[in-house]
C-alpha cells in the first residue's frame, strides 16, 4: 500500500506542478474609447447594443444573473485602459468604470 501511495504522491505532485503554470490574462475586445463613451450610457445601453457596436468580449456571469464585461482601449501613453461594465439581470448596463494603465503594470 505504501508503494502505491508513493506512486500516487509522485503523480499528483507532477500534475499539481503542471497545473500551477500561469499565462497572461485574456484581454477584452479592444475598442475606441471615444466611441465607447459616446455609445455606452449606464441605465440605458443594452446587451444587444453592446454586441452590435463592439462585438463579444470577455464576460463573467454570476449566479445572481448579473454579468461583468471587459473591453479595452488603447491608451495615449501606451498600454491599454480597461472599460468595465456591469450588466443587470435585464441586460441593461448598470455601472461602468475605467481603469487607466499604470506605470507599475507588467509589460504585455
Amino acid at each position, binding site marked *: *500500500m505504501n508503494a*502505491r*501511495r508513493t*506512486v*500516487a*504522491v509522485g*503523480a*499528483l*505532485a507532477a*500534475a*499539481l*506542478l*503542471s*497545473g*500551477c503554470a*500561469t*499565462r497572461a*490574462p*485574456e484581454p*477584452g475586445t479592444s475598442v475606441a474609447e471615444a466611441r465607447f463613451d459616446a455609445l455606452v450610457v*449606464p*441605465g440605458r445601453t443594452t446587451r444587444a447594443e453592446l454586441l452590435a457596436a463592439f462585438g463579444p468580449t*470577455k464576460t*463573467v456571469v*454570476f*449566479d*445572481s444573473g*448579473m454579468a*461583468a464585461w*471587459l473591453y479595452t482601449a488603447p491608451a495615449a501613453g501606451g498600454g491599454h485602459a*480597461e472599460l*468595465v461594465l*456591469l450588466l443587470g439581470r435585464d441586460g441593461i448596463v*448598470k*455601472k461602468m*468604470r475605467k*481603469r487607466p494603465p*499604470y506605470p*507599475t*503594470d507588467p509589460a504585455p
Partner: protein
Amino acid sequence: MRRPVSRRAAPALLGAVLAWTAHAQTAPAAANPSSQPAPAAGIQTVTVTYTRDPVDKSYRKMIRGMERFQREHALAPQATLRFRLLPRSPTVDMHGILLRVIGDHITVPVPVAPDNSFTLPRNEQALQEDAAVVANRKTTSMTWRAQVMTPGLPPGTRRLGDLRLECLVGMEAGLVSNSSPLFGWISNALTSPEQVCNSAEGNFLFFTERPVFAVTLRAGDRTEVLPFHFLYAGGDQTRDMLPFCDCQVLLDRTYYAPIWDRGWPDDTLVSFEFMDDAPETAP
C-alpha cells in the same frame, strides 16, 4: 490565467484522483460493518462514535495558525484574529451553525457569532488528541478563512497588512476548503504559507461582504485600481471549473489582493465599490 489556490490543479489531477479512488477502494470494509463477518469469540469489538471527515479542519493546524498570528502581528499591530465560515454550496443554510472541537475523549463547543465568525479556545487535551474542528454542515458546503481586522478603518475598507496576515494564518491553519480530501492533502504537501502569500502566483482568494465591482488601493499619494483579472477569481472560471474553487458561490465577492507586492505598505487601504452601490451623482 490566474488559478485560485484551491482549484488550480483540478483538471490535471483528475487522473490521479481516480488512481487514489482506486486505492481507497481497497479498504472499504471498515466503513461497511454489514459486510464483515461476525467477530470471532475473544475479539474485542470497538464502537466508533465519530469518524473524522478528511476535510474537517485540524485543531492543531488552526492553533498553529493562531500562533502564526502572534508571531507576525507586526503586519497588523492593532488587529484581532477571528475565523469565519463562508458558504460554498448554493443550498447551505448559514444560520445557526454549531461548531465543536472533537477529539477522542473530548468535545469543546465553540460559540459562533451571527456573522459566522468565531475564536478558538486553546485546549491542551484537544491538542494532544489531534482533535478536529467540526461544524454541523457538510464539510464541502462551506469554506473557512481567517479574519484579521484592524479597528477604526473607514467603512467598506480593508488594510493590506491585515490581508497579508489573513493569508499567512489561513494557510498555516489549513483553512482553504477543497472539493476533495486529496486536494487538501496534496496542497498541504506542496504549498507553504510563504509560497502562497509571498508570490504573485500564490492566488490566495479574498472575499468581500457584498458583490464587488472595483477594488482600489491607496497608500500616500499612490492610488491604483486593481486590474480586472484580480476580480472574480481571474474572471476565467467556467461552470465546470467552479466546483473545484471554494469561491463557488462567492464568485462575485472574490478578489486577489497584491499581498506579495512589498511596494504597497501594510498600511495600504483597500477600498471597494460594490455592485449595489448607488451610482455617483454630480453635486
